[in-house]
């Protein structure tokens, strides 16, 4: 090999060496396909409802309902799959960390929507009497992550007696029913198994075959009316639940109506409905403009009977509506009056019937 050949060989070997070295460095610095937690890239967004209707706390805890309290949108914006993603929630001190959901894999580009249906302690719910702020925290972790990550958002629990009639925006309200868009949650206030209500109802239904006899069911209905009157229950007009910031009302549970011996038309209707359900009579609450009326369905004929429950306050009925009632303001008189009111509302198309048994089955369970 002469000098010239040597020089040529040196040049070729130098080029080959440099290229190999560059490729070596390039290969060494490529990301590994093995799972590497530092390569995980997730976009996590926590969304909460502004306000929670506390009376329906059981519904919010039922994952077959669409009444989530919060939801988390998780997008894998990285280029490797995320393994064993676990997510759980905690609602202030009202719940413990829930068991949460585990997603074995979130693929690159994949989005997951995870919902929070908290199991709220009933004893703690009972203490929430006004709109109360509470922090909802979401905690998530995934394979090889050293410590779970957390995000929090504030939301408000309405008082346990607050009922918001509709969650629709004002500009979206078109029909009469839109004004009562949350009407199904009235079923949560109808509590036939609560102790005070049950005891009161038993005294009303004693000796009657309410589940099989139309006559006995109607008798129980009128007896409940008379029993509440005998207990001194009065009709009151409650101010709107202005603190909720929406069309709402302070609604009493039957126990409260019995113990306080007073209630609004909605309170009295709810109480009557609960008493009837407690003795095995199918009941409803009819909503008409500015008013609520209790209704029962007779077991044999299926006929509906309503009663003007505010007139169990005899003094109120005589003083304010003396032109349409006798001084005795009997229960059967109030049945006739209620029928007229409902017939008129039905003709106007401003009538909504809340069927508690249906909504209980749908997951809007009685609060107590």
């Amino acid at each position, binding site marked *: 090999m002469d000098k010239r050949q040597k020089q040529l060989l040196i040049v070729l070997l130098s080029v080959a060496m440099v290229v190999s070295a560059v*490729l070596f460095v390039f290969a060494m610095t490529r990301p590994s396909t093995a799972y590497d937690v530092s390569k995980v890239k997730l976009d996590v967004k926590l969304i909460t409802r502004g306000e929670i209707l506390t009376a329906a706390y059981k519904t919010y805890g039922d994952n077959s309902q669409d009444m989530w309290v919060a939801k988390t949108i998780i997008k894998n914006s990285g280029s490797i799959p995320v393994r064993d993603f676990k997510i759980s929630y905690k609602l202030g001190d009202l719940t413990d960390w829930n068991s949460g959901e585990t997603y074995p894999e979130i693929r690159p580009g994949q989005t997951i929507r995870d919902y929070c249906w908290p199991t709220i302690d009933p004893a703690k719910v009972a203490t929430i009497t006004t709109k109360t702020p509470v922090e909802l925290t979401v905690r998530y972790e995934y394979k090889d992550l050293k410590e779970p990550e957390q995000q929090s958002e504030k939301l408000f629990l309405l008082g346990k007696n607050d009922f918001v009639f509709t969650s629709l925006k004002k500009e979206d309200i078109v029909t009469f029913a839109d004004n009562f868009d949350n009407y199904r949650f009235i079923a949560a206030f109808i509590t036939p198994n609560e102790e005070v209500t049950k005891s009161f109802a038993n005294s009303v239904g004693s000796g009657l075959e309410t589940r099989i006899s139309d006559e006995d069911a109607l008798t129980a209905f009128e007896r409940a009316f008379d029993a509440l009157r005998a207990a001194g229950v009065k009709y009151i007009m409650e101010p709107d639940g202005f603190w909720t910031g929406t069309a709402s009302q302070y609604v009493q549970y039957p126990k409260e109506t019995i113990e306080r011996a007073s209630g609004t038309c909605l309170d009295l209707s709810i109480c009557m409905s609960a008493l009837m359900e407690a003795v095995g009579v199918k009941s409803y609450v009819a909503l008409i403009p500015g008013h609520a009326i209790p209704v029962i369905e007779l077991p044999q004929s299926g006929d509906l009977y309503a009663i003007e429950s505010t007139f169990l306050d005899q003094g109120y009925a005589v003083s304010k509506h003396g032109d349409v009632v006798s001084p005795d303001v009997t229960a059967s008189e109030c049945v006739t009056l209620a029928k007229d009111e409902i017939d008129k509302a039905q003709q106007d198309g401003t009538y909504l019937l809340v069927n508690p048994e249906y909504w209980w089955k749908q997951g809007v369970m009685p609060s107590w």
Partner: protein
Amino acid sequence: MVSMKRLALIGIAVLLLVTVFAAGRSRAADKPTVVETYEVTVNDVGDAHVTDTIKYSKTDFAAIKKVGAKKRGFLTRRFTDEDATGELRDFKTQMNDKTNSVVITYDKLGLAYNTKGDFLLYGYSAKPTKQAANTFTFEETSTVNSEFTLFTDQVFKTTSILKIPPAASKASYDAQEKAVSYQMPPARTTYGFFSEQKTTLSIAFGLAALVFAGLLVFVGTKKPTEPVPVPVATPGPVPPAPVEPAHKFCQQCGAKVEPGKHFCTSCGAKVD
């Protein structure tokens, strides 16, 4: 008697006609007045594009359009309310006057869940009426009372078409979950050849660099062979051919030696 028979026959005929008419009316009451096509196309990571086409009679469409013009968002408020927050993207509503249809389109991220290994698409309560390749078809007739019927009872004939990703396999209807389930190939990383063969390539290129470096050192330190100088011939006059001397002389005694003799004939010394 004859006239009585005739009367009876006429009576029966009228009764039949009334019955048939009533039955016809009853069928007419169940006859769909609205035809809906609800098409969902799902991509590889479970995101869906939804196109919901609701076709009305001309009269009903005019009524819907009128309300929609007065109350913007009336038809779509359930799609855009608090429940739907963060769910839908690129939500659009179109009124198609030519076909008397309302067309709603949107994207829903993460419609298919893969919590159990399989991807699941929930919300299909009845078995599909058709399955071809990765397309499921569901058909249902139901009475609807909602914004889309202006809160009157109307019979909807709904055809739901679900298109799962072409790469999906083992697609089937899960009656228990009321869902369509399918499997997808394992998730691929996007690093390419160098990442997938990182170890092999690193070793190969590292070794190659070392070998080339070694060879370079070897070649660089080896002495090249000395080159033989080659005289450069210069053109010039051709020299005269050498003349062989006729005699040699003895280097010992100087005597003349005959050509072809190897010894001096005078002193006997060797002549060469």
